[in-house]
C-alpha cells in the first residue's frame, strides 16, 4: 500500500511539473510574436520593448523558465500586466466567491440527483416508465449548454417574473441562478452515475441474501447497499469538484460573478498573459491534488482496495 501511495504521489509530482511547464511554453508556442499579439499590429517600438521586459521575453528562454518556476515556488504565480500585482493576490481575492458558487452548485446537484437516481434504480425493473423518464430528464440536462441555460434562466426568472437579480455577487439571492446553471449538467450526470451504481449493486448476491434473511427493502438499501454504491459515486463527486472550477468559468461570465473564472476570461481578453497562466496553473493544480486525494480515499472507504494492492 505504501508503494502504491508513493507511486501515485510521484505521478502527481510529474504532472504538476509537466502541466506547469506546458502552460509556460504556451506563450512560446504561439505562432508569431506574442508581444504583437498583445499590443496588436502597429504598436510602437517603446511599447513592444516595455511589454517584452514585463513578460521577461527579452531574457533567454531557460532564464524565463527558471523565473516562472520560481514564481510558482514562492506562490506568487508571477505579476499581472494589468494591475501590476502578484497573480496569487488576485486569485486569493476572487477565489472565495468561486468556492462559494462551486460548493452551492455541488450541494444543489447532490440534492437534485440522489432521489431520482436511487428511485430509478430501485423501481427500474418493475416501473419502466420511471426509469425511462429519469433517463430522459438527465439526457435533457446533459444536452443544455450552460451558456444557454444561464441566459434562459435570466430571461424567465429575472426579466419575465422579476423574482431574482440578473447578475452580480452581493447577496444570497444572487447565487441562486448561477448555482442552478452550474448544477444542471452535473446533476444530470450524477443521476446517471447514482442510478447505474445502485442498480449494479442490486444484482449482487449479498442483496439476495439480505432479502432471504427477511430484511425490508429499506433496511437493505440503508445498511448494505448504500455503502457499496457510494464508492463510485464518491469518486465522481471528488473529480466533479475539480471540474466545477472549470464550469464556473462560463457561469461566472454569464452572471458577472466575481470569481476566478470570470477573472480568467477578462484576463484573456485583456491579454494579461501572466494572469491567464497563473489561473490555469492554479485550477489545474487544485484539480490534480483533488484527484490524488480521491484515489487515496479509496483506502478509507473500501477496505477491499487495501487487500487488492497488497496482493499485487
Amino acid at each position, binding site marked *: 500500500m505504501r508503494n502504491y501511495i508513493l507511486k501515485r504521489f510521484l505521478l502527481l509530482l*510529474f504532472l504538476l511539473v509537466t502541466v506547469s511547464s*506546458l502552460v509556460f511554453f504556451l506563450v512560446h508556442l504561439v505562432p508569431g510574436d506574442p508581444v504583437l499579439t498583445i499590443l496588436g499590429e502597429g504598436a510602437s517600438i517603446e511599447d513592444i520593448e516595455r511589454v517584452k521586459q514585463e513578460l521577461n521575453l527579452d531574457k533567454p528562454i531557460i532564464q524565463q523558465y527558471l523565473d516562472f518556476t520560481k514564481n510558482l515556488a514562492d506562490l506568487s504565480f508571477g505579476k499581472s500586466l494589468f494591475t501590476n500585482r502578484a497573480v496569487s493576490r488576485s486569485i486569493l481575492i476572487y477565489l472565495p466567491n468561486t468556492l462559494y458558487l462551486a460548493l452551492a452548485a455541488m450541494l444543489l446537484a447532490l440534492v437534485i440527483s440522489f432521489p431520482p437516481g436511487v428511485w430509478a434504480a430501485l423501481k427500474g425493473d418493475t416501473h419502466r416508465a420511471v426509469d425511462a423518464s429519469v433517463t430522459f430528464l438527465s439526457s435533457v440536462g446533459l444536452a443544455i449548454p450552460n451558456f*444557454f441555460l444561464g441566459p434562459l434562466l435570466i430571461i424567465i426568472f429575472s426579466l419575465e417574473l422579476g423574482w431574482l437579480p440578473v447578475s452580480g455577487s452581493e447577496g444570497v439571492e444572487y447565487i441562486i441562478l448561477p448555482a442552478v446553471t452550474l448544477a444542471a449538467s452535473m446533476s444530470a450526470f450524477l443521476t446517471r452515475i447514482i442510478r447505474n451504481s445502485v442498480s449494479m449493486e442490486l444484482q449482487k448476491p449479498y442483496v439476495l441474501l439480505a432479502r432471504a434473511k427477511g430484511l425490508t427493502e429499506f433496511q437493505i438499501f440503508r445498511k448494505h447497499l448504500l455503502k457499496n454504491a457510494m464508492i463510485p459515486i464518491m469518486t465522481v463527486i471528488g473529480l466533479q469538484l475539480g471540474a466545477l472550477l472549470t464550469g464556473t468559468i462560463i457561469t461566472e*461570465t454569464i452572471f458577472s460573478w466575481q470569481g476566478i473564472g470570470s477573472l480568467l476570461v477578462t484576463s*484573456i481578453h485583456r491579454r494579461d498573459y501572466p494572469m491567464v497562466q497563473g489561473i490555469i496553473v492554479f485550477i489545474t493544480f487544485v484539480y490534480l491534488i483533488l484527484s490524488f486525494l480521491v484515489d487515496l480515499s479509496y483506502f478509507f472507504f473500501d477496505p477491499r482496495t487495501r487487500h487488492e494492492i497488497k496482493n499485487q
Partner: protein
Amino acid sequence: MKLKTNKNIQLRIGFFLLGTILLLMIGFSLSRPLVIDIDMAHRLEPSSVKYLLGTDELGRDLLSCVLYGAGISLGIGFVVVVISFLIGGLLGLVSGYSGGAVDTMIMRLVDILLAFPGILLAIALAAFFHRGLLNLILVLTVTGWVEYARLVRGEVLKYKQKEFILAAKTYNASFFRIIIHHLLPLVLPLLMVQASLGISGVILAESSLNFLGIGLDPQIPTLGQLIDAGRDHMFDKPGLIVVPGVVLFFIIIAFNFIGEGLRKKFTKKI
C-alpha cells in the same frame, strides 16, 4: 405502462432528431439565400417575409446566421472527431499492443492532457492562439484524441494475451497487420460509440469557446457567438438567444442519443 425493450428507442430518436435538423437546414438553405452580411441599417428587425426570424444586433438575418452557425458546428464536430478518431485510435492500438517504453510514453502524454479539468486545456490553448478555423480545429483535436487512445488501449490490453493474437504471431504476422486486422475490428464498436458521443462534446467545446470570444472571429456567426451577442438584448429580443440555443440543444441531444443507442446496441452483442 410497459415500454418495449427490444427496440433501440434512443438510437431511433437520435437519428430522427439529426435527420430532422439536417433536413431543415438543407431545406432553408436551398429555399432562400443565406445572408450573413452585416447591415447596420436593419438592426434588430422583427420577423418579416424577408427576415423570417428577424435580424440581430448587426443587422444580420437571424435564420441565416443560425443555419450558418449550425453548419459550422456540425462541420467542426465532424472534422475534429474524424482526426481524433484516427490519431487516438492508432496511438491507443500501438500503445496497448506494444507495451513497454512506447506505452509508457504515450500514456504519460495522455495523463498530462487529461490533467486539465474539462475544457480548461482548450481554453488555455485558444487563449494563446490566434483566432481562426484551423487553430480552433487544432485546439479541439489536441484535447480530443486522448479519450479515444485511453479507451482503445484498455480494450487492447484485454485481447492482447488471447490465443488468436498468438496464432497470428506464429504465422509471422507483422505488427501493423496484427493491430489493424486483428485488434482494430474488435475495438471499432467502442470507437464508434465514443465518436458519436464525442461529436456532441466537441460541438459543446467549440460553441463554448465561441461564446467566450476565443474561437472564431466574432464577425462569423456561430451558435456560441450568437448566444453571447444575444445577451445584450435579453429584455427586448430574447429570440436572439433562444433560437440558436434551441438549435444547439437539439444537435447535442441528437448525438447523445445516437451514442447511447450505439452503446446499448454494441454492448448487447458483446
